[in-house]
């Protein structure tokens, strides 16, 4: 039973860490491409 709770705790910890990291990443990386202009075909 103790082993089961340890495993569960480790799993929850891993999920929490990845959620925090993902939130931090999306907060720091500006997801904006920019630099596109209308194509000139003349």
């Amino acid at each position: 039973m103790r082993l089961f709770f340890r495993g569960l705790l480790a799993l929850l910890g891993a999920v929490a860490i990845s959620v925090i990291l993902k939130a931090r990443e999306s907060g720091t990386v500006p997801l904006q491409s920019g630099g596109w202009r209308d194509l000139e075909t003349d």
Partner: protein
Amino acid sequence: MTPSIGILGLGAVGSQLVQRFSTAKVKIPIILHDLDISKTASLIDQLDHNFTQTSGARIEDEDISILVIASPSGQHLQVAQRAIKKGISVISTSDRISDVVGLLKLKSLAEKYDASVIAGAGFSPGLTCALARFAAKEFDFVDEIHIAKDGTGGPACAKQHHRAMKRPSLDWWEGEWVRRPGGSGRELVWFPEPIAGSDCYRAALPEAVLLQTIFPNSSRITSRLSATRQDRFTSWLPMLIPPHNDGGIGAVRVEVRGRLENERITRVLGAVSPPSSAAAIVVQTLTEMMMESLIDPFTGGVANIVDSTSFLNRVTAKGIKTVEFDGMPSN
């Protein structure tokens, strides 16, 4: 033969094409056919008298000069073959490799019956091929072409997207054809706004097959499809949720690398539009160019058959936003 158009398949692309012809007040006879007879009947009720439905079971038995095949991918080859044997030119919207390869193999048959076959006439392939050809005009030598697509049209397009993700890709790599697993090769691709960054993966896409004939000396021609993690991890399963009626806005990105006066340069072009609308515009433009005799009888992709500058001018005027990346932020 009296100029007349047949449209097979009234899904997202076919029905928008019909509406566009109707809005453009095209006066020639247009014959519609779909497996769902009620869909054809309800559409015809809203249209002018020059739009009719097929009298028999096969549209190629009608008196038509151009047949647009907008039915789901995988059903194009046999219809095209029968149509060509009756001297009918064919425009196919299929983006399935087997359809495109099969249609290109009908070249000798098309020459015998003096018909044109345009394979892969849609947003991607289709518009992407024209963009690649246009971008290449600035180069002395084209070395690499990399194409990426984001978004889907109607339900049939979404199903094909799902199918393409689990099938191996077909890329032109260092002078030979290379197949790699679908869903591999993740690459963050920057599309024009509002799509911006999206992860793209290898998939069973026919762009390389269509472009390699134009750029046989290029070293690499690849294509990728944008997908979410859910798309990737469920690609091996049947579609669990029914696809949406229309996928909304999408984009394509075409990167061409090559040499100009011994200097290596890269040109990145793109387009933004709902994929089903873009495919309808591409097909409408090709049909108009055929009717105006601007296209000689030929078998190939869009970029083989049309002058890319004239074609892009026409599709831009019809509402597809075409752009070029210059790296200078707008604000």
